Structures are given as C-alpha cells and as structure tokens.
C-alpha cells in the first residue's frame, strides 16, 4: 500500500506530460510531421511491429557492450591510479583533458577508423561512458577515513586485506553511482554512433524518420530508446540495493540521481 502511495507522484507527472502533448495536438492541430498525436505515434509503433526487434536488439547490443567494456576498463583504471603513484601522476592531467573534450565530436572519426558496424558504435558508447566509472570508482577507493587506514596499520592488516575489506566495500556506493551515470551515457553514445554510421538500430531509425518526415516513427523510436535506458538504469539500481544494503534509500548517493 505504501508502495502505491509513493508511486503516484511520478506516474502523475508522466500523465500530465502526455495530456499536455495530446491537448496541444487537439488544440493547435499541427501537421502530423511536426507534432503527431499520441494516437499517430501509437499507430506507427504497432504498424512497424515486426521490424522493431531487429533494431531494438541492435541498439541494445551496442549499449550493453559499450557499457560493459567501460565498466571493466573504468574499474581497472581506477585501481591502477589508486595504487600506483607514478601512474596517477602521469595520466591524471591526460584524463582530465580527455574528460573535458566532448567525446561525441570524435564520433565521425571513430567511424572512419573502425568502419561501419558494431565496433564503431561500441567504441563511441565506451568512450562516453568510461569516465564516470573510472572517476567515481577511483574516488570511492580513495575516500577512506584516514583514521580507518591508521587503524588498519595498527592492527597490521595486509595491503590485500585493506583493499578487499576496506577500500573495495567503501567504494561500492560511489562505483554504483558511476555505473548509473555511465548507463545513461552508454545509451547516448550508442544512439549517436547509430546517427553517424549504421544501417540498423533505433538511432538509425530516428535519422531515417527525420529525413522522411516520418515523425511518428522518430518519436516511437525515441520512446523505445528511453525504455531501454530506464530498464538498464533500473537493473543497476536493483543490483546496487542488493550489494550495498547499508546505504539507506533516502540518504546516500542513490538520492542524488
């Protein structure tokens, strides 16, 4: 019962948005290629039916691969820079610069280097999603109370023990926050990869739809991209709750995004 009570505000805001949209369509009667009504979008969504799986799966594939590779490299990178002073000093300025450079601008170049296909899309998704994972994980590994580290030294804990029993669990909330950000970025990266060069996928459909004034198809594709993003985010959130039960739901990093 309490679950329902907490669910209604967001449901209500979605409903309001949809109502305003449909209301605008009824009142202003814009051409369907400018602003299609919900009915037209729904119609197109159904009409396109058998073609969706191919494109949805292609986009999901790019997102998941890009995301997973970003996580693996991000964590590895974070551990490396936390434990190697030289490495940290060597690559931190480089990382900061790369973080600021809009990776999206590299999309056309990636396409020329990697050719059309999964490799480009995954690379772009990875490039964009990588940094939040790296930085958040690094911060989480490092942000241990100095007193706690003193305590570890006084009880003569081995560095391995300190890593696995102190730094690693401590970093989990930060790590998951990084994952959540990275998941949304991986979605963006994959779609942009499809904008720039692909013959399949929801991003590709959006471009086709725009060029052919098939706005209902474009909006339906955007809707599906959002669903994919939400599902991924939700899965990560669920895993996070499972892995970090000590972080209360109201407070903590989960509350921020």
């Amino acid at each position, binding site marked *: 019962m309490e679950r329902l009570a907490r669910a209604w505000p967001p449901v209500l805001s979605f409903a309001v948005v949809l109502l305003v949209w449909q209301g605008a369509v009824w009142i202003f009667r*814009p*051409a*369907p*290629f*400018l602003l299609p009504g919900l009915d037209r979008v729904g119609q197109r969504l159904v009409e396109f039916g058998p073609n969706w799986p191919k494109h949805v799966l292609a986009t999901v594939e790019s997102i998941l691969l890009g995301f997973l590779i970003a996580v693996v490299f991000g964590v590895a990178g974070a551990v490396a820079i936390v434990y190697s002073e030289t490495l940290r000093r060597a690559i931190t300025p480089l990382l900061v610069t790369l973080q600021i450079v809009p990776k999206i601008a590299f999309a*056309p170049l990636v*396409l*020329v280097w990697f*050719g*059309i296909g999964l490799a480009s899309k995954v690379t772009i998704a990875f490039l964009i999603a990588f940094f939040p994972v790296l930085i958040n994980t690094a911060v989480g590994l490092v942000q241990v109370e100095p007193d706690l580290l003193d305590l570890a030294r006084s009880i003569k804990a081995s560095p391995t023990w300190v890593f696995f029993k102190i730094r690693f669990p401590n970093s989990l909330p930060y790590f998951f926050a990084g994952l959540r950000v990275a998941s949304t970025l991986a979605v963006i990266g994959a779609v942009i990869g499809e*904008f*720039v*060069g*692909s*013959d399949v996928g929801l991003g*590709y459909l959006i*471009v*086709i739809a*725009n*060029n*052919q*004034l098939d706005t209902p198809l474009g909006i339906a594709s955007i809707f599906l991209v959002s669903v994919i993003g939400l599902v991924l985010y939700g899965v990560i959130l669920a895993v996070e709750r499972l892995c970090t039960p000590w972080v209360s739901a109201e407070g903590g990093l989960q509350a921020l995004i």
Partner: protein
Amino acid sequence: MRLGSALLGVLALLVAPLTGHAAEKVTIVLDFTISGYHAPFFAAQDKGYFAEQGLEVQIGRGYGSGDTVKKVAAGVADVGFNHPAPLIIANADGGNLRTVMGYLNQEMCAVYSAVENGNVRTPKDIEGKVWGGPPGDVCSIMLTALAEKAGFDLGKVKMQQMDAPQRLPMLATGQITATGSFFDKDILFKKALEQAGKKMATFRYAQYMSMYSNAVTVAQTTIDKRPEMVGKVVTALLKGFKFTIANPAEAAAIVSKLYPEVDKEYVRASVDTLLEGMWDETTKAKGIGIIDAKKMQETRDTVVKYWKLKTEPPLDAIYTNRFIEAAHKSVR
C-alpha cells in the same frame, strides 16, 4: 522624368528612416551546409537587394531539406530552401507548403567513385559496389529511380548508411566504393580522393532522369498573410541571380567572406554548378526561376512513387509562379 524619379528615390531613402519605418524581419533557412550555389541569397543580402525593399533578412544554414521543410511548416523560418521531396511528403501529410521560385532546375545528383576501386562511369557499374549515404538522402533514394530508368539491378548494390560528411573519407579509404551527392561537390570528392592517391570517376543522374531539385519554399499561411514580403524576397533573389550570373567570382567572394571556413575553391566551383543547374528549357525560354507544370508533376509522381507516399498531394498546391512572374516584370 528620370532625374525627377531619381530625386524622389533619394528623398524617399532619406525620409524612410525618419518616418521610423522599421525593416520587416525575414528568416531564411537553407538546405544544408553552405555552398557556392547559395550565392544569389548572399549576393542579394550583400548588395542590399533585400534592404532596399525594407527587408531585414537573416540567412541560416540548413540541416537537411527535411529539417528545413519542418521549420518552414512550423513557422520557425519564413522562407526555406530545400529539395522538393520533403515538401511533397509534407503536403501529402496535411502540410501546406509551396515552392515560389525554381532554383536548381536539373536533377542535381551525381555518382562518385574512385577510378582505382569502383570506376563507376555508367549506372550499370554501380552493381556490385558498396554504396554509402545518409539514410533518407535524396541521391540514395533516387538510386531506385535511376536503377529503373537506366536499367541496373539495385539488389546487387550493398547499401551502407552513414552521415553525409562521412562519405568523403569513407570513399577515399575505400570502405565504400560508390556514393551519391549533388554535383556541386565534384571538387571536394576530387580533392579527397587525391589525398588518398586516387582519381575520381563521376557521372550525373540528370543524364538519365529529369526532375526539379532544390527550390525556394514558403508556407501557404505566409503567402496569405504576407504576400508582399514573399514578392519582395523573390524579387531580391532574382536580382541576386542576375548579379551572380554577371559576376560569379565576386559572388563567390561574398560567400567566402561570410564563411571563410568553407573551402574557397569549392565555393567558387559550386557557383559554376549553380550557373549550370539553374537552367532548363523552361527557364531558358521564360526566365529564371519559372516552374513548368508538367515537370513539377513528374517530380511529384517520382516522389510519391519512390518515397512510397500513401496520398498524392494536389499539383497546384505544390508551387506557384505568381511571385516570380511579377518579379520578372519589375526587374528589367
């Protein structure tokens, strides 16, 4: 009486600002990135042809003809410059837009390939190639029409979708072996291939098919509410055309000054493209920008067929010669 009207003209120009006559603002959106074939627009602006009629014009680049059509339909742009296909598609879907002046009156697409890997000189050569192009791009979709009219099997062509600017590097590196684009880009393809040590092979769709290409678009509601403005824009563009025809190098320089980041050689060469593409039998006989009903009908039917439209928009709602004919009368 000449001196008298000249004096009156000077007086009017002096008085006009004093009467607080604010210039009418007009937004023009082009089709895509800046090319020398846009020269008439910029020449008209630079030489004051808009201003002398009391128009304050803002000209912006486009993001694809489809996008331009949407902007005109939504009222974000007063005037658009775009390919007829999205206009016809829009009109088939409840839109009410009109071409008010012909501009590029030949089919503008050309096929490009490298001599070293592809060497596409006739449509039949396209078979077996890897074709790269933006999804929904005019030249890629028209390939179906070309296949029918010139007689080759489109099934034997591998289609690769990519963003428009990618075509150049992809062709140069051989990742695609043929592509299509408006032929103003001849020089850009040639240079890109040269960088990879290759030579360019090309031929034009116009050898095999005839239809209208990019033209000036206005929403019907704008025609109803601001007919004088539309007339003034067309008049100024006509003068811009005449200037460009007489002074192509200077017209190119005007564009390059505004957009120094665009390859200057390309700008100059694409002005020549305009001087070629603007002419067809109708315009030669009747005047710059005049649209022929039969050719527009063919254009409409081609779009309906190859873009698989469900309804056929009425022909007389797609274009009008009213403004360009009036312009010819006032511009001697």
